[in-house]
């Protein structure tokens, strides 16, 4: 393949909304949303307990997404609420999906781990570690052909760094000069396994460089730094230079809602939670002259927005039972026959 398809790409994306205030607002939205997801569970209104919160990791979602633009596509792992929100998701429809309701993004079929919206370029969250990574190679091929300069971004956790599919995907992206970015949100834990218990190779970006990608690691404490590093890689990806970004952060809470993380010490958690990108951005804003009152106002607006999302989810209906057979195949195809219908035919023979 040649570079021709990519030549239509702009040299660099303009950087609107790059101000810290907008980034802070987005991060606060992610955090408050995640806190409300926790409440939805406590109130018995979530579909199951497989809810993976991204509290502590907000700068990765917000910093990278701020560098993306309309037309870009992405996939996420199972801890992807924040990424989708930062790409413009409607919190009401997200919360409804997490509650397994008809009004959710996937009509209650997907849930927290399988949320998606093609309109916003979300090619899907995934419950298989690494499962969503290779799709960005394919989306990258399509973008390259279309020649509009769109990129595709795979978001995943450090757990996926030990899955073979990542390396097959990075190799192809480099081999074919694809407009693709791989983003590892390194929250230090794959479920209960700390990263040093999973690998001896901690300079994750060097693995990408070995395949010919641009590779960087950034500290997730400062969202501005994440955004700037991401922007460089995103701009390069638009010209057909695929990249990899590891964002170092800390998973503040357990793996899923039921996990009280007995496998790590309280002192470690206390230390980890000091690395709080939301509070860090807030302190920086105050240092720059923004008042506490103004920021409280922002936070309160967000709290109301997310409370409304809970109300919307709780008030929404469960999907109709008949919808169970819809969307197994294309819209004009016959739906699978219910087991009851098949049983009826067997028993009607008599």
């Amino acid at each position, binding site marked *: 393949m040649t570079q021709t398809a990519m030549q239509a790409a702009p040299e660099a994306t303009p950087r609107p909304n790059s101000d810290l205030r907008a980034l802070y607002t987005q991060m606060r939205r992610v955090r408050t949303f995640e806190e409300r997801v926790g409440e939805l569970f406590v109130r018995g209104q979530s*579909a*199951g*307990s*497989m809810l993976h919160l991204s509290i502590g990791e907000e700068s990765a979602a917000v910093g990278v997404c701020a560098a993306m633009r309309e037309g870009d596509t992405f996939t996420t792992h199972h801890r992807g609420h924040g990424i989708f929100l930062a790409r413009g998701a409607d919190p009401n429809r997200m919360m409804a999906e997490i509650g*397994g*309701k008809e009004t959710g993004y996937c009509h*209650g*079929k*997907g*849930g*927290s*781990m*399988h949320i998606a919206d093609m309109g916003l370029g979300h090619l899907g969250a*995934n*419950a*298989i*570690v*690494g*499962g969503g990574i290779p799709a960005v190679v394919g989306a990258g091929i399509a973008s390259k052909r279309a020649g509009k300069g769109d990129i595709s971004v795979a978001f995943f956790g450090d*757990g*996926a760094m*030990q*899955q*073979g599919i990542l390396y097959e995907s990075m190799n192809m992206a480099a081999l074919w000069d694809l407009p693709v970015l791989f983003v590892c949100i390194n929250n230090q834990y*794959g*479920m*209960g*396994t700390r990263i040093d*218990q*999973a*690998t001896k190779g901690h300079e994750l970006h060097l693995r990408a460089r070995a395949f010919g990608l641009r590779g960087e690691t950034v500290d997730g404490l400062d969202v501005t730094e994440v955004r700037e590093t991401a922007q460089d890689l995103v701009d390069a990806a638009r010209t057909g230079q695929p990249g990899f970004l590891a964002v170092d952060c800390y998973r503040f809470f357990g793996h899923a809602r039921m996990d009280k993380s007995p*496998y790590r010490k309280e002192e470690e958690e206390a230390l980890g939670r000091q690395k709080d990108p939301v509070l860090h951005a807030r302190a920086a804003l105050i240092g720059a002259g923004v008042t506490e009152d103004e920021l409280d106002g922002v936070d309160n607006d967000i709290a109301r927005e997310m409370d409304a999302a809970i109300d919307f989810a709780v008030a929404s209906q*469960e*999907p109709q*039972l008949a*919808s*169970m*057979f819809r969307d*197994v195949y294309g819209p004009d195809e016959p739906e*699978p*026959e*219910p*087991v*009851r219908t*098949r*049983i009826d035919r*067997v*028993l009607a*023979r*008599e």
Partner: protein
Amino acid sequence: MVQMTYRDALRQALRDAMAEDDRVFVIGEEVGRYGGAYGVTKGLIEEFGSDRLMDTPISEAAIVGAAVGAAMAGLKPVAELMYVDFIGMTMDQLGNQAAKIRYMFGGQIGVPMVLRTQGGTGRSAGAQHSQSLEAYVLHTPGLRLAMPATVADAYHLLRGALRQPDPVVFIEHKALYTLKEEVDLSAPVPDWGKAAIRRKGDDLVIVTYSRQVHNALKAAEELAARGIEATVIDLRTLNPLDFDTIRAEVERVGRAMVVSEGVMTAGVAAELSARISEECFDFLHDPVVRVAGEDIPISVSVALEAASVPTTALVRETAERLVA
């Protein structure tokens, strides 16, 4: 007699096997320090150390592949796959390697490993964490397949699996871990590969396994209250399959239904139904009926999930209509 849960029985089986034979070791994600995603291996790392409860990175293909190699090299690995839904990522190691090594290499060596995993619905875990994929395994010659329904079987079948010369896929049901029953672990060990008749009746035979055994027994009680007596066969292992027990009961009673949580098309129920129809044809008063999972993925919605697999009501109603 002692009261224990399905989860405890599995742990006890691993503990006893490891104490008896130092070649036995467990390898998988979160099996050591965490104690298993469903708590089956909790505490074993304190007893046996991290050399025998090997926590791995999230690398399913290599976990199963490493177990294959360890078994060929003389160890007795128990690999754990956290969800049976992840079997796709390991299918080459399982289906092309573990299952075929004895045959391809002319019988020189076997792969005596156990792959413990769990499946099924019941936790709103969504399309990639709720499947019943036993048909993938049953469709692969060379793999044995055990699916315990009771607490005693959780213990005995796991011990039995570890005595096999060939790879055994051992699928637990996520909704059974908290099942509590009285068990006598010193009772005679049931023969590996022998089905259990959990209830005997003269009107129809319900052939089933894993969690659906409990559904079938509940349905059978409700049927008895309406004057219908069902035999309930718990297959315990699907490979080997104890077709002799099925045949004897179906020939005696003359009516059969098969109940499985896996999807209906080309599933375990399809195989059982075909075989009963073919081999017991002259004894059947009615066609064999399958009650199985719908041919759809599992939704996260609580209501849709529950309606995707056989319910006690569906088993009971179908049985009533079959016998009527």
